[in-house]
């Protein structure tokens, strides 16, 4: 008797779920809406806090799940009791479904006052990862930046854009990129504007300290509330340096918005299934947040990765392992 398991999403969590299911003798199917697996890991350059090239991790994941069946270019429209319906109109039966559909990146355009897509030299951390992958980080007109500002918590902890949650990994991402850019442009000055620095993971705080001490990155506690373009297409920013209680203004060559994680856009659709509940943040709610992190209210629907909350890569991958275990337990018990 072969049991059929569908994994929604071919990002790191989905890939690891597939790999772990294969280890347990279950052959899963990954349904990936884009045309390749790997999810957003495809876009990243180096991973914090070790500066490991993202493609190395991706290659490992790919290698461990190469026997799984992968359907790309197909999205899951809805999840039912006995399977899923797909964007091509077909349905696919399954004994269990693992939702590993991930997160969406916050659309920085929504923070209009920061000028993303309006001013030439406002970027997001995602743009920078792309530039790093392309091997050239530069201003719009190709000049080398002399002054760079990072703004933390763009689309996180912000009532004004209905993102009340902390996206958790952006702090360390911003610090990582600050270090990468400073290493690339040693003559430049790099400023990080933050509300809090939340260095929750192992080695993160140590990396933060290196950023300060060895890379001489300036950390200013205060949120940039306004950005404007100057005549030479640089960006004038205004913040309060809350530690001195004075407004602070400066002109930078690049303003980089450290964008947070928002709930995946498919969560809402999936939540139409009874037993799949959303949290106020829009992320899917696990059955309980201590012992059943990868389980839903439906016995044969499971979760892995950032579909339930912002997580770092290691946590997402671990959830793939955990979800596979839960799936196997469920299938064996039946």
């Amino acid at each position, binding site marked *: 008797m072969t049991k059929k398991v569908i994994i929604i999403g071919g990002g790191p969590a989905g890939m690891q779920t597939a790999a772990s299911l294969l280890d347990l003798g279950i052959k899963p199917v990954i349904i990936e809406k884009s045309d390749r697996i790997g999810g957003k890991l495809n876009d990243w350059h180096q991973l914090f806090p070790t500066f490991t090239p993202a493609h190395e991790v991706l290659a490992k994941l790919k290698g461990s799940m190469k026997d799984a069946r992968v359907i790309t270019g197909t999205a899951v429209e809805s999840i039912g009791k006995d399977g899923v319906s797909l964007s091509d109109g077909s349905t696919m039966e399954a004994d269990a479904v693992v939702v590993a559909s991930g997160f969406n990146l916050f659309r920085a355009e929504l923070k209009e006052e920061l000028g993303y897509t309006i001013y030439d030299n406002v970027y997001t951390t995602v743009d920078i990862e792309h530039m790093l992958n392309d091997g050239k980080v530069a201003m719009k007109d190709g000049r080398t930046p002399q002054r760079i500002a990072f703004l933390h918590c763009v689309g996180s902890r912000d009532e004004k854009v209905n993102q009340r949650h902390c996206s958790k990994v952006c702090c360390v991402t911003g610090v990582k990129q600050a270090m990468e850019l400073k290493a690339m442009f040693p003559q430049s000055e790099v400023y990080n504007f933050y509300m809090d620095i939340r260095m929750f993971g192992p080695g993160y705080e140590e990396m933060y300290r290196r950023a300060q001490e060895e890379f001489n990155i300036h950390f200013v*506690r205060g949120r940039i509330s306004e950005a404007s373009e100057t005549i030479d297409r640089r960006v004038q920013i205004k913040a309060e*340096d809350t530690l*001195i*209680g004075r407004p*602070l203004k400066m*002109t930078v060559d690049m303003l980089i918005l450290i964008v947070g994680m928002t709930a995946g856009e498919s969560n809402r659709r999936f939540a139409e299934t009874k037993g799949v509940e959303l949290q106020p943040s829009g992320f899917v709610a696990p059955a309980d947040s201590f012992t059943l992190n990868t389980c839903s209210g439906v016995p044969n629907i499971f979760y892995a990765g950032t579909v339930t909350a912002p997580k770092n890569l290691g946590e997402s991958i671990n959830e793939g392992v955990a979800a596979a275990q839960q799936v196997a337990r469920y299938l064996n018990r039946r």
Partner: protein
Amino acid sequence: MDFGFSINRPRAVDLDKNDLSVSRKALMEMPEWQACIGCGGCTATCTAGNLTQFNFRKVHTLVRRGDYQGAYEEMNKCMLCGKCRLVCPRGINTRGVVMMIKRLLSEY
């Protein structure tokens, strides 16, 4: 002409106009100074701060931002007792910071 008022100077710390050369030099000499996370432990335990408005954290942060006005005079309130160094969670040589600010900024 007397207007009965004059144009207020902007309160903003302007990193475009501030002369950052001294602060750069200081940070080069003492990179650990940049590791300050603004916890305020130094200011809370400060012997001089117990008796005056002297706020070490604020003054040294201003200096890092290139705002040197009055920093020397403020640092002269310090008694160099070293309590701040004992409490600093980031291990910053706070007394060294005081001495450096005084050495570099005596003419400001």
